[in-house]
């Protein structure tokens, strides 16, 4: 009985990802593509935004120069929130398709959003100190709900780290990401309901902002969003490169390859083997003795 050289359709990840017609010589998709363009656009956008913030946007009367931190704080907040929700959406894709690459994307996006959320809290705290004299105020619902969300997502990596089985780790992380992603808007609503306002909310009153401020804010938002995208892409590319190196090592060493103890890791393991240059559609790495007689199972 002939053993077919390709795995049955529907059950392998490589089927979905390999470019058409490339089964015989699988070209791993290029993950670094577009990175340079993205980085350059980010640098330009940030430069423009900084210029606008310092030289174009008017000085606000009440809060003075410190108010300019608002152009960093608000975009950071918006991008982080969108990032968390995006992480949840990517996780839904992962659970639907079982493709580990979605889990990788979800992980990177959430991980980056957590950093941006920390930035939000820090800049928010500085702003609070400057505006109201306290390092922390409970009266700003965005800040408060951010604290709660930060505390929630801070458990994401410990959760992953605490699960050894890589597939279970990805699956559980996705469940968490979906639940937490749904939690973000609900939490905001609840905190909003219960928080007394001290100041008119800046975000809500964008319509009251003078055009120059609104424009600067928009440019800052674009710059920070690009920064987020670039950093995520960097991290994804780096992880894929590392996974490819591991796959190549495995291929060279054949069966003698002993996976180095990666130790437990919170990050997803990476690409399925076929993605990283392991032979696709070729012979298995080691000829298996005695297999030709699996037909004997029938005749016995």
């Amino acid at each position, binding site marked *: 009985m002939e053993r077919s050289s390709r795995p049955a359709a529907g059950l392998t990840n490589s089927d979905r990802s390999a470019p058409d017609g490339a089964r015989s010589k699988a070209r791993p998709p290029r993950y670094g593509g577009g990175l340079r363009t993205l980085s350059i656009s980010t640098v330009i956008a940030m430069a423009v935004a900084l210029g606008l913030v310092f030289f174009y946007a008017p000085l606000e009367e009440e809060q003075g120069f410190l108010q300019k931190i608002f152009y960093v704080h608000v975009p950071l907040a918006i991008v982080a929130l969108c990032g968390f929700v995006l992480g949840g959406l990517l996780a839904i894709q992962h659970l639907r398709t079982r493709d580990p690459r979605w889990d990788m994307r979800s992980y990177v996006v959430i991980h980056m959003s957590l950093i941006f959320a920390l930035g939000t809290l820090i800049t928010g705290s500085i702003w609070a100190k400057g505006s109201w004299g306290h390092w922390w105020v409970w009266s700003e619902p965005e800040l408060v709900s951010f604290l709660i969300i930060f505390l*929630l997502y801070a*458990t994401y990596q*410990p959760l992953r780290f605490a699960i050894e089985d890589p597939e279970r780790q990805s699956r559980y992380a*996705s469940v968490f990401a979906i*639940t937490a992603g749904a*939690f973000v808007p609900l939490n905001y609503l609840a905190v909003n*309901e219960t928080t007394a306002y001290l100041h008119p909310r800046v975000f809500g009153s964008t319509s009251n902002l003078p055009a120059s401020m609104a424009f600067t804010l928009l440019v800052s938002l674009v710059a920070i969003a690009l920064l987020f995208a670039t950093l995520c892409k960097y991290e994804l590319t780096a992880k894929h490169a590392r996974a490819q190196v591991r796959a190549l090592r495995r291929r060279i060493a054949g069966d003698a390859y002993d996976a180095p103890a990666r130790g437990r890791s919170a990050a997803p393991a990476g690409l399925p083997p076929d993605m990283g240059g392991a032979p696709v559609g070729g012979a298995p790495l080691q000829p298996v003795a005695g297999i030709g007689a699996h037909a004997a199972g029938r005749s016995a």
Partner: protein
Amino acid sequence: MSSVEQAHTGAPAAGEPANAPGTASAARQTGLWRTVGALLRKELLVELRTLESVPGMSLFALSTFVVFHFALNRGSVEGDLAAGVLWVTLLFAAMLGVNRLFVADADQGGFDAFLLAPVDRSAMFIAKALTLLAYLVVLELVAVPAFGLLLLGAPFGPALPGLIVSLALADVGIAAVGTLVAALAVQTRARDLLGPLLALPLLVPIVIGGSRASAPALVQAHQAAPAARWLLTLGLYDLVFGLIAYAVFDFLLED
């Protein structure tokens, strides 16, 4: 042989071909509610035999009230402060129940046994959430009167129904989220730590809704019914998270 004949269902006789691929004739499924019933009976039996969860939660709540008395240095509390003490205590006691919810199943192969059976897998979530809900109700039956006795300045008056409604709504939310978090945490290495760490932020809206809703009921002078918006918050949370937890839970079971 008759009893065996009765018990015999589904396996083909010798010489009969087994089912063609794709047919469901031999795949009889045990109905959802029958499975939930079987699981609930098992839960009840295990809990009665071990008394692991409910007595611990209740005693913990009582001890916490005593601790609060000394920590706050007050003989009685009312209004917002009372609501805070009550809800924090209930929440932390609930964490104890959450921690223990899946331990027996995880350690003794209960998951595998369930996964091998021809059952609707949603039954596990429903059964466990109902179990946790039951634990919470029993906890509150003990803790709330105790609270009234030990720490509350005002007796529970006409606003008691309002308090009960907010407790009930909150319990549903805690049960849904608690079950999900319990299943997430139980198969990790730091299960007792991760459970509360995951659950507490997720349950903040419950704390908000619950304490704001019940604070008016806990004042000395004129007790008031809970404001509708807080009950609505609780209700909305229950709906959203009940559905989400139900939807994603099965992904925690399978491999």
